[in-house]
């Protein structure tokens, strides 16, 4: 469910790499070949991928929490089944991605440890609270919609395991996105009270969703390098603009208002131009001071600690079976 490419500090790529190997590597990427575990790759390529994939995995994992909190309060059985399935998918997506990061030499132990002790970053969006049931629809429509933009791009990335994880994830996220749309259309076209709920949810999730795409291109100096290596083939602003254009058209059709007084349609370019994003808020939330950062981390730690006895039981069972043979 995540996007949020955090800025990175790629210094001059692969300064120490063998120039012939680097040229061959880049030629492979230009030819559209996938790089697979075991193939030669610049240290910086590996490092950037581990950073991106592990952050992405953590985001999926933490992404279970905001929606998980509404499972017991789903208004009917169908909605409850859908929400449980969706939360379960997010857990699965985390697993696909941890696997992809492991193929680059990162260990599961290190990654989980970094998440639990607060060192690792994850998408800022999950530090916002879902306050009403309409938020369950709005998260599917906006947050999953934004994530799919990013993930569809990454499905074409040059690293085989990451691209394959993304193909699987995109197929599953499509269900998440559509169940959200279904709910929002119903509310937006429903009773005045339902419509007000949908509008209220849009007002609260619109700006944090736009922040998921990460800082403006002018503040993302690494995008050209990541593009050259076939990791990110579209920039943050390009993806954000695609999302904005599609989503605004849809919002207007169902009679919802985008909470942006500066929003205007630019005839010349055919794009919607949005007002100023509050980047101070973005950095505050990324750096640990969002509405729910502490709660999310505490919940993950509690889940990990509460699962201790299960891990111990499984280990004891495996040990016993082995000694029985």
């Amino acid at each position, binding site marked *: 469910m995540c996007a949020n490419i955090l800025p990175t500090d790629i210094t001059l790529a692969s300064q120490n790499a063998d120039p012939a190997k680097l040229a061959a590597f880049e030629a492979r990427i230009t030819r559209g070949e*996938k790089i697979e575990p075991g193939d030669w790759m610049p240290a910086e390529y590996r490092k950037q991928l581990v950073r991106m994939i592990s952050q992405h995995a953590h985001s999926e994992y933490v992404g279970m929490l905001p929606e998980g909190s509404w499972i017991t309060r789903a208004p009917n059985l169908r909605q409850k089944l859908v929400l449980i399935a969706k939360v379960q998918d997010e857990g699965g997506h985390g697993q696909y991605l941890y696997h992809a990061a492991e193929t680059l030499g990162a260990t599961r132990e290190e990654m989980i440890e970094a998440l639990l002790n607060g060192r690792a970053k994850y998408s800022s969006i999950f530090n916002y609270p879902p306050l009403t049931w309409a938020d369950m629809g709005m998260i599917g429509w906006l947050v999953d919609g934004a994530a799919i933009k990013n993930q569809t791009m990454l499905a074409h990335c040059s690293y085989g395991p990451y*691209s394959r994880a993304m193909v699987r994830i995109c197929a599953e996220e499509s*269900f998440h*996105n*559509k169940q959200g*749309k279904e709910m929002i259309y119903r509310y937006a076209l429903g009773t005045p009270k339902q419509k007000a709920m949908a509008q209220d949810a849009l007002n609260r999730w619109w700006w944090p969703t736009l922040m998921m795409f990460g800082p403006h291109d002018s503040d993302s100096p690494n995008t050209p390098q990541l593009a050259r290596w076939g990791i990110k083939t579209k920039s943050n602003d390009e993806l954000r603009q695609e999302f904005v254009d599609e989503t605004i058209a849809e919002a207007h059709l169902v009679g919802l208002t985008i909470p942006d007084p500066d929003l205007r349609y630019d005839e010349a370019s055919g794009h919607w131009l949005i007002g100023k994003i509050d980047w101070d808020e973005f950095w505050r939330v990324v750096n640990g001071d969002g509405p729910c950062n502490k709660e999310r981390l505490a919940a993950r730690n509690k889940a990990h600690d509460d699962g201790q006895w299960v891990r111990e039981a499984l280990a004891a069972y495996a040990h016993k079976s082995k000694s029985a043979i």
Partner: protein
Amino acid sequence: MDTQWPRYEVFEKERPDWPHRNAGSVHAPDAEMALENARDVFVRRPHCLSLWVAPASEIFSMTAEQLAGFDWRSVPAGPDSEPYLVFQKQTQRAAETFVVHVGEVEARSHAEAMSHAVEKFGSGGVFVWWVCPARAVTRSEESDVSAMFAPSESKPYRQPHFYKVIAQLREIKSKASE
């Protein structure tokens, strides 16, 4: 720091006429639990007919690039010959497909199995090779199919086409333009 247990590679067979294909990996304390975890992680949706798991430590992997620089003279051989499963990545296109099961060879070591595999199955158009001793693979049983994989068939709400939102939006659009 908690240990996350050994990694098992997971192979999934989705259709009767398809081979087992690598889906990813899971961590588990033993092969039995690895199969259960693989079901939970990779079979939330139809269709799955069979799952295999194998400890990652038992799999010998080579990319085409590694194979090109490999010195076959240094291949060590064990005392006894045994069957190995051979897997190949055969295309750069289908992004979802990594290595698929193509057959078996007899060999006395992982490296020897690799050299036999390349001989037997040809190296043209192969991007990644995996070999794994057959004894290291744990397979779901025919009798497990209904318990392990059938539940995913009865959850149509996990499929995007369950939600008719595209048609709905089209209808809203045509009403708006009236």
